[in-house]
């Protein structure tokens, strides 16, 4: 087997898995920080209870997110050493600064927060969870600055056969970064909010601890709706940006083989024929693609075949077309899931309009919401597939192809061993995470939410209700 295929498979599987946990950590840290802020400033015990209930899920999730993140950093060197040599100069600093600025902060203050409930003044303890939240956001920023270099390389020159940084400010102001970061940050907040809203709705439908879960629902649905609404705009903004910067990615996401007419119609459905490089059948909405791309009802977009010719002229012969069918559908899955979340958020706001008293009346909605937890995860994964597959065949757009990035000294059997070990352990971790989540949420675990348990030890054996003091 070709090491390249294994390395790609490993990168895809470990990254997708890691990215189930990252947005949840970012989102939950933020919402939990809001809950604890309400507790500190309103002084009502219910907010403390709420903070600690969601904290259990947050901490389980955070632990898995961290341990799977270590491999993310190491695998660039392990599987992609040629890539690391070529771009270490520009790509490495973002990772180093991420560690220095974000990871140290997150990991230190999470320890302080978990073990500090009864040792620190309330406001300082509150500050520690906000610093954790800030750390997760910084982390996202620096990772995306590194990713943005792969999508749209800036601030470098090629010297001695390597990309060398010559303008750090350009890396920080990379237009791709500023189109991507708000989008990723907001979708992460939506993810955390929908997780809380979905679980709260499940509890409300079963009339468990109504006071707490209705309040949780209201807080999370407000965050969920507002962020999902903002995601709509950042996504639109990012798409417009892609039309300029990575036209091939956009053309593939639209299955637009030939340069469109003016105005350009949006293709809702297409039966794509990648071999013949055309669509056998399509349903279109006139004007819409022009509007999505340029905010006006005219303007045409370049097609895949024309772009391929341009790239061959520029970069030499080769296939510069990413997997069109996959991109077309993941784009629709992502935006579709986003649209459904927006509607659910809107209805959730309506359902809880008079504080929380109106919530219980919406039985069907409350039974629907737990299923909606899947939506942000589907959308996030689809979004990353669009971003990363859309960049192919490049690992760094225009500079280095994926096939040239793989480690020359690592054998296929070594990589296969690694792939099998990591996917196995990740599968186990995934199953355990879900098991522990369900266990914590299940009602018999929380018959008496006021039961006194450990003040000191957040890891005791009270089935997950532990850090309730």
């Amino acid at each position, binding site marked *: 087997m070709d090491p390249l295929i294994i390395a790609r498979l490993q990168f895809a599987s470990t990254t997708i898995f890691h990215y189930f946990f990252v947005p949840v950590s970012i989102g939950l840290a933020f919402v939990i920080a809001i809950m604890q802020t309400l507790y500190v400033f309103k002084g009502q015990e219910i907010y403390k209870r709420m903070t600690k209930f969601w904290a259990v899920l947050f901490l*389980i999730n955070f632990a898995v997110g961290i341990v799977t993140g270590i491999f993310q950093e190491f695998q660039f060197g392990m599987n992609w050493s040629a890539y*690391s*040599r070529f771009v270490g100069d520009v790509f490495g600093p973002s990772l180093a600064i991420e560690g220095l600025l974000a990871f140290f902060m997150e990991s230190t203050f999470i320890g302080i927060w978990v073990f500090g409930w009864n040792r620190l003044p309330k406001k300082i303890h509150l500050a520690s969870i906000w610093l954790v939240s800030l750390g997760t956001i910084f982390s996202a920023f620096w990772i995306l600055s590194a990713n943005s270099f792969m999508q749209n390389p800036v601030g470098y020159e090629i010297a001695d056969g390597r990309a060398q*940084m010559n303008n750090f400010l350009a890396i920080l102001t990379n237009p791709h970064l500023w189109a991507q970061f708000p989008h990723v940050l907001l979708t992460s907040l939506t993810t955390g909010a929908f997780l809380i809203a979905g679980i709260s709705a499940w509890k409300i439908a079963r009339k468990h601890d109504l006071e707490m879960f209705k309040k949780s629902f209201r807080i999370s649905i407000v965050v969920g709706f507002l962020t999902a609404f903002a995601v709509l705009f950042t996504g639109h903004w990012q798409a417009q940006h892609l039309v300029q910067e990575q036209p091939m990615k956009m053309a593939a996401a639209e299955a637009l083989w030939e340069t469109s007419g003016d105005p350009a119609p949006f293709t809702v459905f297409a039966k794509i024929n990648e071999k013949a490089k055309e669509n056998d059948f399509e349903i279109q909405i006139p004007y819409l693609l022009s509007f999505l791309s340029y905010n006006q009802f005219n303007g045409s977009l370049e097609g895949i075949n024309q772009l391929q010719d341009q790239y061959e002229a520029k970069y030499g012969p080769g296939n510069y077309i990413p997997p069109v069918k996959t991109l077309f559908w993941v784009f629709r899955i992502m935006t579709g899931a986003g649209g459904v979340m927006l509607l659910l958020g809107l209805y959730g706001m309506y359902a809880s309009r008079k504080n929380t008293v109106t919530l219980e009346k919406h039985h069907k909605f409350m039974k629907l919401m737990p299923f909606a937890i899947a939506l942000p995860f589907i959308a996030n994964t689809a979004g990353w597939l669009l971003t990363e597959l859309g960049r192919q065949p490049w690992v760094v757009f225009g500079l280095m192809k994926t096939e040239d990035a793989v480690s020359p000294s690592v054998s296929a059997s070594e990589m296969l*061993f690694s792939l099998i070990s990591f996917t196995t352990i990740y599968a186990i*971790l995934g199953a355990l995470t879900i098991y522990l989540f369900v266990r914590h949420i299940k009602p018999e675990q929380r018959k008496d939410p006021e039961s006194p*348990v450990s003040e000191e030890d957040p890891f005791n054996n009270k089935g997950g209700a532990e850090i309730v003091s």
Partner: protein
Amino acid sequence: MSLSEFWFILITVLFIGFFVLEGFDFGVGVVSRLLGKNDQEIRVYMNTIGPFWDANEVWLIVAGGAMFAAFPHWYATMFSGFYIPLVFMLLALIMRGVSFEFRGKVDSDRWRRIWDWSLFIGSLLPPVLWGVVLANFMTGMPIDANKEMTGNFLQFLHPFALLGGVMFLFLTLTHGLQFITIRTHGELQERARSMARKLTPITSVLFLAFIIIGYFISDVFSYHGQTFMVIPILAWVALLFANLHNNQKLDVKAFMLTSITIILLTGSIFLGMFPRVMISSLSEAYSLTVYNASSGGYTLKVMTIFSLFLLPFVLGYQAWSYFIFRKRIKQDDELEY
């Protein structure tokens, strides 16, 4: 001093920080299972590192990130070259990391036993593997003209490397036991102290063997002159004094001394490699050095500004976290089960 030399020092410091901090973590992870006689005692031992282990592990992540940024070739050669040992180390770190969080979540003896084992193995493997890696740093590896490491996994496991692995494991065990003596009380503390009393002599013998054989088998202790052998010998002396202080129940001093042992040992290996960062066993000319493995001057300048600005904060709040949790963990009145 050029910036690439400065970054070599900084990465050395990050590795020293990682070995000192996560060193006692690993030790505690291994001995908690051996010393704790019941669930509650194991939990007390684990909680001595509860608030810290995560941040300690970040020292490794930052060291890796800094290598990537400042010495891309070092990062690429080392991480792809030590492929299989790294796979095992990462798997161990994953098992270990989740065991802290998972262990207490289900009230079942079987469940806890699984995570006790996972913590045990996850804490035992990394120091062994790091010992192997350090020993290979000293003897050099088959690095070719393209800066790629050739050969297979078994070449890392020569006798000196295995000695390095066992020695480093024992060093972290001693270090971890000393940490427990300053974080616990009474019976639990006494148990750690008595285990340290038995283990440290073995550690000292292994340590002495490692540096003496290291002196003959590798050039790192003599590359800058024979007198540099003084540093690893001082490390060994510190270890002997640690044992002495442990016997006299001067716990904090004993812990400081085991820390000094790790600092001096790691420091002497990195210093002895300098200006090389990866020694090639094929030809001196193929060795990676701080000069031929480093990033461009601009990157190093940017990174220097960032790190000089951020490090004081990082060190400050990490020190503060140790200050907050400076109180010893008692067995009965603070842990409720």
